[in-house]
């Protein structure tokens, strides 16, 4: 047990060096945490998607609409519980920089297929009653300070013109990964106006979402749906929501890969800082270790001594870094363009990875000094001059 005391004493023999090393590790752990958070935020859409929902879109690209008539046909496919549909409304709220998703949805069914957008019964009834009603996410309500009953005006681009909506409800996210920034309005309200202004685009549906009975049948059901429209000019592509979101992420894979690489380079840099400190300490203590050996301390003791010091410093730096990660991640999130990531927070997996990195680094940094110390002959060690 004396060895443990020696580990502590050794760690802080050079106060300045130890604290610099701890600071260095902490800084790198923060950087690691932030980069991992960016990566997980990117994958948030996948986490939020569910395997018991299918998405049907036009096979060439989701920017092409599907006819409304598909709805009843899809409903007949065995295994399909409920069908809803939506259009990307787009548009601008006051300024182009204020980005949040705005969707025109089927008022009756949309919230049934997406139970994770939680609204009260009253809010739901109010939404259904008024054709210009809309429901917004709690995050968006907070960010723009909007309340139920207030008006919100959008400048349309895909649907040209000014659009006024009344907020009839604010939905709350059921899970942490649920996107709480969206805005939903009546598909039929938009459609009515389209019928008058652009009859060619009336009854267009952006995509259909089906909730299904059994996720295990998703492959067969998707095939059955696509088969219905195979030979029509608007053939479809149906996949699970998870696959659909993954497809979106694949488009940004280059950036995600580079961030992954960078986060591991950071781990490498922490390792270098700590390894440097450990090598220097044990170099200075060559004579002491030789004395310990002479006194009869075994190789295990010496290994424990050096490894313990390395782990202890890594641990202190890691704890400090993890503590600071939280405020810094939220500060970083505030500087990102608005609405860029619907959910930006430190995920448990990030903390686990950081902790794991710390352990690996503590182990690896001790390797060289231990190797060298054990190999040095006692005589050489005693004779060593720094």
């Amino acid at each position: 047990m004396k060895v443990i005391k020696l580990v502590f004493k050794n760690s802080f023999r050079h106060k300045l060096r130890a604290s610099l090393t701890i600071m260095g590790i902490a800084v790198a752990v923060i950087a690691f945490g932030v980069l991992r958070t960016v990566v997980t935020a990117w994958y948030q859409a996948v986490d939020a998607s569910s395997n018991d929902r299918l998405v049907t879109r036009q096979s060439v690209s989701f920017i092409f609409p599907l006819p409304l008539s598909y709805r009843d046909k899809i409903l007949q496919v065995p295994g399909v519980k409920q069908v809803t549909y939506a259009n990307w409304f787009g548009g601008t709220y006051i300024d182009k920089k204020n980005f949040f998703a705005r969707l025109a949805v089927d008022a009756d069914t949309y919230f049934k297929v997406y139970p994770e957008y939680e609204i009260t019964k009253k809010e739901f009834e109010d939404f259904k009653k008024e054709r210009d009603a809309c429901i917004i996410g709690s995050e968006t309500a907070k960010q723009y300070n909007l309340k139920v009953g207030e008006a919100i005006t959008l400048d349309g681009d895909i649907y040209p013109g000014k659009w006024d909506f009344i907020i009839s409800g604010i939905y709350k996210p059921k899970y942490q990964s649920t996107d709480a920034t969206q805005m939903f309005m009546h598909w039929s309200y938009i459609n009515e106006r389209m019928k008058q202004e652009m009859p060619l685009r009336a009854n267009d549906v952006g995509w259909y979402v089906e909730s299904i009975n059994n996720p295990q049948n998703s492959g067969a059901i998707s095939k059955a749906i696509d088969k219905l429209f195979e030979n029509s000019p608007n053939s479809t592509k149906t996949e699970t929501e998870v696959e659909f979101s993954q497809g979106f992420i694949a488009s940004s894979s280059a950036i995600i890969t580079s961030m992954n690489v960078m986060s591991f380079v950071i781990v490498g840099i922490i390792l270098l800082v700590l390894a440097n400190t450990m090598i220097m300490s044990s170099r200075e203590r060559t004579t002491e270790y030789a004395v310990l050996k002479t006194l009869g301390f075994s190789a295990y003791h010496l290994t424990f001594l050096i490894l313990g010091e390395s782990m202890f410093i890594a641990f202190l730096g890691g704890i400090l870094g993890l503590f600071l990660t939280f405020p810094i991640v939220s500060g970083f999130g505030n500087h990102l363009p608005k609405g860029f990531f619907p959910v930006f927070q430190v995920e448990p997996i990030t903390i686990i990875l950081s902790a794991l990195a710390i352990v690996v680094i503590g182990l690896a940094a001790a390797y060289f000094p231990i190797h060298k110390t054990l190999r040095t002959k006692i005589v050489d060690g005693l004779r060593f001059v720094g």
Partner: protein
Amino acid sequence: MKLPINYTFKNFKSRKLTTGITIVGIALVVFVFAAVLMMAHGVAVTLVSTGSSDNVKIVRKGANGEISSIIPGDVQNIVRSLPYIAKSPDGNPIISFEPVVIINLEKPNGGVSNVTVRGVSPGFQLLRPEAKIIKGRMFNPALRELIVGKAINNEFKSTHVGSSIKVAGNEWKIVGEFSTNGSGFDSEIWGDAHQLQDAFNRANSVSSITLKLTSKSDYNKFKKAFNSDLRLKEYEPEIEQQYYLDQSDYLRTLIELLGIFVTVIFSIGATIGAMITMYSAIANRTVEIGTMRALGFSRRSILIVFLIESLLTALTGGLIGIFLASFLQFFTISTLNFNSFSELAFSFALSPWIVFGSLGFAVLMGLLGGFLPSVRAARLKIVNALRAE
């Protein structure tokens, strides 16, 4: 001064591992620093070279991208009759009415991504002379034929000259490959505007209009004429080059923000690393420093020697980092441009500014990391230093 400098070099030799680790650390930091800057610069270079400064692009006001903009046929005719539009040798205005859509294409390693398909009007070669056919031939405006940008061919399956892709239920033949010298157009597929309008049921509406001005300096006059026509109040003109630059806002902001953040964090880490090395270098050499002082070297010489040592370490690391980063120029990466919602291919681009910036950054780390330790070395009292164990 010769002796102390010699002393510095000898020291590198006697503490190989520690000095080596510091150099590697700084090299890594400089590498990442340069890589991020090169990425942001690459995006900007690609988009700045997209479009010309004497072309004007017209989209619907408030449209977030070309795909969400709609310009009906009557408006197209009004624009065509505006003044200050350059004429081709046979007297027609140089103007292209372009339907723009996005289609999904498969990537070779699985997954799909969005690609912009642009319909162009006859005579677009005068509008965008930088576009050259490098393989195959130009599309025939009377047929369902397409030409693909150079970057597309590298990124996606089944887009070689001679193959065909399915768009809107019909087979379209790819007859040629074009290059615009690395601009954003290289990530697009082009075909005849009328053919594409037909295929996509767009009637006669298009997404954007691009026209050539009689002269760059006529833009303000053109804009005045444009804005004074009330029938055009729903639309807005913008210099084509500026339009594409604005299109990269999100991507550039993200990369730059990450770049600044990573750099700040990394430099703190590297400075601390340099500091640790220098402090211990000095602690180990207390007696030597005392000896040098006793031999008559001034405090200033000692300070300078240790600063030089730290600067040399940092500079070596910096050079290695830049050297490694320069190889990144051979890579082209492709990612989703959030504004246009389609793939954009760009290369890491090195500029003199990035080289000097990165080296300056390395020197700064060396100075910061070496300064405090050097001051400590210089302030050591001779007697105490000589007496140190």
